[in-house]
């Protein structure tokens, strides 16, 4: 029964969020709470010669100042600091581990005090002497020393040769600067002793079990003695995939003082937690005059830290998406003296597909083809680099429905040919692609005879609506009203949940719930069949469904037993089942979501002011569990795409090796006044192969291609091609 799945269901946690009942990591209070404040390095590289905390310690209310010299014991081995999401190569950053300075604003001391204000003030009194070393933070200066991290999975033919011989060629370099997530909630951890030496850490994270395993490893604690909870998260967007330093510091403080400790990072400190790496994207596409492709070459160079090799798939999208007999793609890394970059919404695709889709637009101009037409001429129903069919791919329909909703057919091809009063008008489009992933996940369902179910899994809801879709799936599969379902998540003691990332949570947890609901149904059928003269005597578990509080024969709906009766007759108060779903590796098909984005810009050319007046994003992402939360996901992605295209840029002063705008006053993001009309379309995409429910996930696809559609619209409006993001006012000069 699908009473809730596929509907526009409002968030079940919405009321808690708007009334403040939802508590975040920095909001759990307890008597005797100690407050932490971080002292940060003022140099980018070198070592600490001397830390003098004496003045800070003299401040009334200061309890301790922890440094690498006096902190409680932590693991020595670098491997102990590897979390589930850590890059394979390299050594993770170890906060307060030793005297090494690896980046500006690195945490080097933790002041612990009875009051937060006291801690912050005392932190300003800690005196540090450094020995400085030479450093670099400039990608352009390091590009020639970049090294290859991912060999292309498959060269198809000789792409360089085919490109050189192609009739029509486009080759250009695109640039995406460092960007930061800027989630509304800064990172925070509250570590509370529960008695018996057990510690609970409330932490802002995308994966409670990842943080729990990491902390147990770093502090050599038993899994039973350390619990991590994150019931609500004020946005994370990838920055919370890895355990961050505030959680280590909070535990250090709690262990040292044997008291509860809270550490909430400042906005500036959050900037050292992770970022989208600055990336140079070089794309070369060769084509025949009819718009079929001969070659695609995509090379990317991104920054990483000196201590870890963080890389993403920036370039393989170019080898996968369009029909081309040859392709070559390569990802390289350039080391700089900054913290390790991290995943940020659609990591790799947001940047790589930006470059690919701008390059396709430039090729369409060279070929004198409509941009949609060009994409249809090299449309592929098979993943080009593995030559596999897709489990489903309705991208063609995305182009059609998106173009129709946008009014694309009225577009005049020539740049600068459309105006609205004194403003230039530009229409641009792009494709989007992301993966449809699914991960091993478990769920526990407890059904009570009064018709209430509690559903629990250690997944996270980072604001995406996980609470709500879990309740929808459980309600439908258990035949209960939505209000009778309670969701528990974000607690490391609950059944297996992976970090929430990669857009995989919806598909994964839904199937964990479905599998477990099947076990519940099986038990209910057993009980129902024990009822005297049971109308379900000969039914099989697959032959019955749970509907409206009853176990119903699917083909003969008048044959039914109420759940309450079955449980009462069986003398059962509650049924508890836990199930784990694994997704078989299936190499026979490619699994992706797709989209087509159409954008309109209006530009005051004299000033360079750009407004994104309309965006249509048509998405094919399998079955949509909740049209409301899914639309919000896509809309959020589009808004971020506007920011990526026009506003967002973390600026470095390479002389100091330091972020210069680590605050939301100087790091520009789109606000309501920058956002006009956004239309989200979900194209029907039935998919019985990817998983039984046909779910793909929508957390990331919304941003992919959006910046390219806007950049292409700006070219169409002005005739000027700006390839380095963001396209600020001055670049249109």
């Amino acid at each position, binding site marked *: 029964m699908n009473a809730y799945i596929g509907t526009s269901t409002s968030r079940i946690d919405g009321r808690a969020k708007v009334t403040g009942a939802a508590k975040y990591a920095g909001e759990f209070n307890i008597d005797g709470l100690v407050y932490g404040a971080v002292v940060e390095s003022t140099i980018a590289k070198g070592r600490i010669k001397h830390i003098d905390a004496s003045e800070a310690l003299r401040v009334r209310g200061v309890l301790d100042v922890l440094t690498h010299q006096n902190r409680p014991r932590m693991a020595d081995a670098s491997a102990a600091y590897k979390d589930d999401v850590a890059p394979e190569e390299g050594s993770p950053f170890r906060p307060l581990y030793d005297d090494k300075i690896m980046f500006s604003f690195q945490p080097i001391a933790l002041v612990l005090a009875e009051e937060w204000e006291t801690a912050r003030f005392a932190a300003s009194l800690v005196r540090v002497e450094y020995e400085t070393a030479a450093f670099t933070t400039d990608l352009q200066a390091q590009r020639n020393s970049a090294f290859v991290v991912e060999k292309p999975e498959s060269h198809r033919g000789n792409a360089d040769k085919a490109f050189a011989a192609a009739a029509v060629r486009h080759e250009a370099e695109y640039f995406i600067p460092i960007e930061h997530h800027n989630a509304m909630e800064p990172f925070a951890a509250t570590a509370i002793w529960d008695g018996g030496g057990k510690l609970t850490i409330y932490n802002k994270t995308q994966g409670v079990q990842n943080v729990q395993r990491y902390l147990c490893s770093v502090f050599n604690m038993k899994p039973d003695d350390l619990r991590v909870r994150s019931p609500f998260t004020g946005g994370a967007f990838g920055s919370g995939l890895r355990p961050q330093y505030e959680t280590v510091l909070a535990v250090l403080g709690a262990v040292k003082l044997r008291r509860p400790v809270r550490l909430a990072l400042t906005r500036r400190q959050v900037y050292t937690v992770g970022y989208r790496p600055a990336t140079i994207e070089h794309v070369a596409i060769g084509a025949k005059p009819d718009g079929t492709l001969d070659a695609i070459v995509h090379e990317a160079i991104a920054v990483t830290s000196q201590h870890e090799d963080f890389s993403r798939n920036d370039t393989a999208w170019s080898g996968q998406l369009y029909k081309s007999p040859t392709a070559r793609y390569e990802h390289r890394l350039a080391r700089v003296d900054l913290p390790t970059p991290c995943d940020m919404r659609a990591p790799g695709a947001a940047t790589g597909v930006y470059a690919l889709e701008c390059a396709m637009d430039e090729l369409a101009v060279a070929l004198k083809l409509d941009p949609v037409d060009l994409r249809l001429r090299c449309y592929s129903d098979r993943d080009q680099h593995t030559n596999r069919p897709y489990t489903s791919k309705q991208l063609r329909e995305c182009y059609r429905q998106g173009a129709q909703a946008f009014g694309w057919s009225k577009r005049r091809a020539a740049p600068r040919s459309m105006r609205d009063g004194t403003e230039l008008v530009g229409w641009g489009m792009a494709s989007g692609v992301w993966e449809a992933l699914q991960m091993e996940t478990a769920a526990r369902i407890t059904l009570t005879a009064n018709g209430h179910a509690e559903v629990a899994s250690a997944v996270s809801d980072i604001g995406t609506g996980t609470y709500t879709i879990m309740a929808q799936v459980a309600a439908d599969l258990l035949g209960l009203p939505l209000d009778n379902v309670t969701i528990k998540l974000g607690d490391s003691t609950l059944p297996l949940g992976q970090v929430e990332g990669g857009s995989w949570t919806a598909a994964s947890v839904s199937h964990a719930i479905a599998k477990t609901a099947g076990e519940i149904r099986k038990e209910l059928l057993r009980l129902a069949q024990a009822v005297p003269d049971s109308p379900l005597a000969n039914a099989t578990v697959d032959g019955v469904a749970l509907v409206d509080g009853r176990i119903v024969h699917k083909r003969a709906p008048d044959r039914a037993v109420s759940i309450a009766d079955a449980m009462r007759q069986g003398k059962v108060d509650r049924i508890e089942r836990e199930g784990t779903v694994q997704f078989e590796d299936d190499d026979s098909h490619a699994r992706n979501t797709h989209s087509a984005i159409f954008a309109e810009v209006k530009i005051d050319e004299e*000033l360079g002011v750009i407004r994104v007046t309309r965006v249509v994003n048509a998405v094919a992402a399998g079955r949509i569990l909740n049209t409301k939360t899914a639309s919000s996901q896509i809309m959020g992605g589009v808004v971020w795409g506007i920011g990526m295209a026009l506003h967002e840029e973390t600026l470095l002063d390479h002389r100091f090796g330091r972020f*210069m705008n680590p605050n939301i006053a100087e790091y520009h993001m789109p606000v309501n006044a920058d956002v006009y009309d956004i239309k989200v379309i979900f194209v029907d995409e039935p998919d019985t192969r990817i998983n039984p429910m046909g779910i793909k996930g929508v957390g990331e696809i919304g941003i992919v291609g959006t910046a390219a559609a806007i950049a292409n619209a700006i070219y169409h409006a002005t005739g000027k091609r700006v390839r380095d993001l963001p396209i600020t006012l001055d670049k249109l000069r």
Partner: protein
Amino acid sequence: MKPPVFDYIAATSTDMAVAALAAAGGEAKIIAGGQSLMPMLSFRLLRPSLLVDINRIPGLAYIEEADTCLRIGALTRHFQIETSPVIARHLPVLSAAMTHVAHLAIRNRGTIGGSLSHGDPAAELPMIAVLLDATLHIESVSGQRAVRAQDFFLDALTVDLDSAEVLAEIILPKLPPNTGWGFEEIARRHGDFAIAAVAATLTVSDGSIRQARIALTGVGPTPVRAAAAETLLIGHALENKLVESVARAVRAAIAPEDDLHASADYRRHLAGVLTDRALHAAWRRAQGEP
């Protein structure tokens, strides 16, 4: 963060305020609206030993009309200037500029004396003071003096005001009849300090310009009057060719710098475009159009 420790005096008269400033030997700061001072204290960019609060001095917030000028008390809040019918009648360019000064909450507290004394290089009020040839009345224990706005702004955040002095009154001459005005500003977000802004007035009779004033902010350490550009306009009707040469002269008169928000080149470009728009608006208004 919290501000550093300081002493505090709530002055009840200007005499009391300047006496306290003099006694502090350069270690005191005046607090009026506090919209720039308080963040600077909280960031501990400033560590004055004493704050002299002038908010309770009676009779320091006023807008008075005289025959040839308007007198504005230093403690007059931005919103009072923004909404004053007297200013709207005689100095509408000032009313228009006020809507670009930060946000309403800030305008409710911030004062004209504070803004001028602070001397932010991208603020609107210093530019308007320079545009309108304001005279600033300054008081201290040693007496009173007057300084022209043109001479008051020395460098970024640096004005001709001794640590023992307080700005008490701003005198703005009324605009002549048949004067039109224009005000154009570009900021990354509304309410932010200007990347560049231009204000202009044109006094027109018999179809030609008798008096022209052009002032800019955000394009250098202090507000700028583009005197050479103004001269080009005198005796002519406004037409596009003339505006082009005026815009060129404006671009030549400024020395903008690169910063986080915009390049020098873009600021110079903006100065020309905004001058063009401000002059056209002023010309239209001088003909009696709204």
